[in-house]
């Protein structure tokens, strides 16, 4: 087929604005899937994705359609719908020439609408604005049209009105894709270059890379080289997804498809990397590659210490399919052996934890998520710190920097006050604010990522009664007055509970954790102090009172069997305890303290 008749595009939207349903409807309209085969939201293939209405692993589907008697190929490239995966979004968008921007007719523009649109504009994509769900009784089409006009500068006649539910407006949308989105550029460079925008692991075929051929061609049995990872392979399978897989001999310039090359190690197939030919390599890789760096770290420990090996196995399996996941063995006195695990963000962390639990049946305890700090030592050396327990002594540091984010917080204007108050409380630095329409604003702050990781989402929700939408991008590192806070039980540091916290917040966090522990740890044989300390200074203290009574007042003949049962129950209870120094702590205390944040 002629390159001129290919259209590569993505759909971008705020969560729940109907991206996946719209994709399904386009598939159905173009005949890629029979109505009977339609499972709701076909592109979201993982159960968890369908459940949460988010896309984690990507898909690319090739659709054929006829317009004005000409055959066209439409490649629909899916994007993940969450800020944690914004780099992956940008790589998917880099494989496209256009994007459909979906906005809910009742909700209007939200934070992710803006964040995603900017990512698309960075790639110079042609944008087709679409107002979806116009069939809803509370749809307010004129208002959303005016938002699209005023916030993004779209013209009214550009905007397509549709309902993915009823199918209204779908033919117009497909027509717009063909007419407005340009065909992939015919590169003057004849050397083969293909952009990897996602990869997944198949137990039988190894890594499957999703690619867009930017120049040249890829053939079956080509000897290829990956320019970043510098690995080389032979292509054993090429094809496209319609969404059924169709094998092909060749992928031409402009085409989107998959490549298999018996690759066992997913870390060799980096999202954003360029595939070229081993014997006739391109001189320059496709621009925009960034190594994926975890933003959030947490220690994951099996609740039952003897399941460490199983946890390792689970993480290894998840890693096969998730190049962004990284982990190394960590040992904690309190929690035993586990893994220091790096995630792209909180959602990524949540997804991994849920999958470990659900797919592998392992209960885990996660320590407080930590961001990556930058420390300059007095020796001049600069270190990255991903765990409170790796924090050097205060005396040996010149400064500590922490990552900040730049926010898009969209709220009805009556919540400006509460949102600003929250952001100030979270050490935010006010940047700017703009009106989306007369009733809604977009508020920009720079806020430390560690505060977002702590409890910002929950607080934002309660401060705005759920009306806020929130998105962010990393804006860089800034110096902060941070300290390491330890929790001590009977004078002994509990490593799993240490946190890095801003000096001004240490007292409050310390008090909350100490109170919570006091509530959860049972009486011991001796009086047991619980302390929160910064350096050598104790900032909060509580005391677990000593056990004063554990005896049966009465014990005559028949009571012996009852008494034995009681003792056996108590003994069983002790087995579930972890010894922290001389203090017996029920292992679920860690779970409770770490899980509840420290509300």
């Amino acid at each position, binding site marked *: 087929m002629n390159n001129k008749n290919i259209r590569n595009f993505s759909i971008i939207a705020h969560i729940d604005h109907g991206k996946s349903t719209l994709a399904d409807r386009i598939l159905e309209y173009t005949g890629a899937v029979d109505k009977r085969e339609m499972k709701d939201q076909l592109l979201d293939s993982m159960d968890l994705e369908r459940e949460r209405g988010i896309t984690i692993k990507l898909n690319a589907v090739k659709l054929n359609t006829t317009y004005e008697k000409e055959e066209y190929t439409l490649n629909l490239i899916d994007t993940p719908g969450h800020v944690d995966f914004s780099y992956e979004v940008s790589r998917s968008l880099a494989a496209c020439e256009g994007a459909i921007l979906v906005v809910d007719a009742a909700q209007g523009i939200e934070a992710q609408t803006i964040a995603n649109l900017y990512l698309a504009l960075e790639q110079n994509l042609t944008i087709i604005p679409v107002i979806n769900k116009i069939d809803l009784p509370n749809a307010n089409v004129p208002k959303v049209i005016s938002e699209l006009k005023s916030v993004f500068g779209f013209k009214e006649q550009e905007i397509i009105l549709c309902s993915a539910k009823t199918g209204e407006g779908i033919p117009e949308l497909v027509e717009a894709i063909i007419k407005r989105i340009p065909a992939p550029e015919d590169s003057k460079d004849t050397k083969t270059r293909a952009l990897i925008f996602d990869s997944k692991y198949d137990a039988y075929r190894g890594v499957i890379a999703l690619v867009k051929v930017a120049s040249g061609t890829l053939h079956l049995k080509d000897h290829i080289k990956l320019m970043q990872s510098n690995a080389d392979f032979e292509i054993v399978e090429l094809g496209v997804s319609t969404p059924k897989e169709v094998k092909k001999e060749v992928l031409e310039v402009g085409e989107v498809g998959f490549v298999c090359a018996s690759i066992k190690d997913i870390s060799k197939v980096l999202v954003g990397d360029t595939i070229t030919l081993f014997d006739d390599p391109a001189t320059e890789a496709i621009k925009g590659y960034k190594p994926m760096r975890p933003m959030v770290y947490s220690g994951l420990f099996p609740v039952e210490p003897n399941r460490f090996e199983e946890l390792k196995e689970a993480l290894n399996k998840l890693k096969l399919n998730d190049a962004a996941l990284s982990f190394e063995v960590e040992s904690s006195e309190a929690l035993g052996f586990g893994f220091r695990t790096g995630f792209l963000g909180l959602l990524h962390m949540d997804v991994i934890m849920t999958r470990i639990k659900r797919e592998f049946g392992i209960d885990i305890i996660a320590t407080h998520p930590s961001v990556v700090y930058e420390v300059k030592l007095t020796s001049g050396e600069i270190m990255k710190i991903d765990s409170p327990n790796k924090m050097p002594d205060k005396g040996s540091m010149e400064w500590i920097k922490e990552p900040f984010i730049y926010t898009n917080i969209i709220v009805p204007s009556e919540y400006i006050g509460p949102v600003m108050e929250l952001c100030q409380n979270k050490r935010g630095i006010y940047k700017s604010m703009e009106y989306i329409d007369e009733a809604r604003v977009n508020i920009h702050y720079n806020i430390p990522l560690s505060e977002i990781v702590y409890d910002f989402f929950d607080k934002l929700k309660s401060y705005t009664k759920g009306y806020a939408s929130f998105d962010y991008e990393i804006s860089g590192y800034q110096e902060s007055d941070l300290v390491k806070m330890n929790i001590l039980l009977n004078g002994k540091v509990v490593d799993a509970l240490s946190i890095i916290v801003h000096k001004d917040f240490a007292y409050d966090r310390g008090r909350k954790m100490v109170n919570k522990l006091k509530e959860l740890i049972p009486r011991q*044989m001796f009086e047991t102090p619980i302390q929160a300390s910064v350096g050598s200074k104790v900032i909060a203290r509580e005391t677990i009172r000593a056990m004063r*009574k*554990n005896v049966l007042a009465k*014990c005559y003949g028949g009571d012996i069997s009852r008494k034995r049962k009681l003792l056996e129950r108590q003994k069983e209870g002790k087995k579930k305890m972890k010894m922290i120094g001389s203090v017996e702590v029920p292992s679920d205390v860690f779970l409770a303290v770490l899980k509840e944040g420290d509300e």
Partner: protein
Amino acid sequence: MKKIKSVYIHIPFCNSICSYCDFCKVMYNHDWVLPYLERLAQEIDNVYMGEAIETLYIGGGTPSSLSIFELKALFEVIAKFKMSDKIEFTFEANLNDIEEEKFRLLYGLGVNRLSIGIESFDSEKLDFMKRESNFKEAKKKIALLRKIGFKNINVDLMYAIPGETIGVLRKDLKKMLKLKPEHISTYSLIIEKNTLVGLNKIKPIEQEHDLKMYETIRKILKKKKYVHYEVSNFAKKGFLSKHNLTYWNNEEYYGFGVGASGFVEAIRYENTKSLTEYLKGNFISSKSLMSKVDNMENELILGFRKLEGINLEHFFDKFEENMQNIFPIKPLIKRGDLIYKDGYVYINPKKLYIMNEILIKLI
């Protein structure tokens, strides 16, 4: 195995039900007493092997709730036992039931120890317990018992009742002591599930307060020359309860009657708690053979209730094992949980009130 020398007989009938009691009991009903005694005789015939009995304990329920006629019938059943000359024969009684004819009868039939459930003289505590008592009455009744000839009387005292202050406890103790009992049993309230207080979800008092009450009791009774010989029991010299020591020494005994338990030929058994089942002749509800390890563990669980603790030589004679080889005694001595002295190992008296914590480490 040593010969069995102790018998417990349970009489489940009561004239009123106390709010905290989880012993096996029913409201007194004349129609059930004689059939019950018939079954009791049958159960004794099934099991008793003719040993001379040195301690006999009739408990309940409220055995004193039986009429004179019924008591005579009971004693016809008891006549089945061969009794040693120096038998300790205890009968449990309620203050309200004490009257001359009935207790002369008991005395004449060989009862030489009475255990009287007074529990308290404080009206608020009594309201909570759903019991009645009166100090003046008590004094009169005890005088009567002395006149009849009873020389060994125990009174029960309950404490740790919600709302009870140290002052209230002291007053109770003072009055109890005025009765000059030979033996005092003191019980901290246990809130059991299937009792009125349990059903009302009453919360136990603070541990600190409970312990303080316990210490108050120990101090006062020590001053009055009572020997603290078991967690909850105090006695004048020479008046330790031989029957109860059978339990705490982990020795075998017969138990008869509904809800009773026994320990015969290495088997611990429990009788049915259902009076209807018992009246049908279905006596035993569960049996378990004690292994050597079970027995050794029970020796500790029960034996450490005694303040004198466990005699190492006696332990060896009984099990042909050194106690310190079987159980981690030494580290606990080192920690100060246990004390070794003159051939005995015992719980550090300061830690008696948390002895379960220590037992858990042992067994």
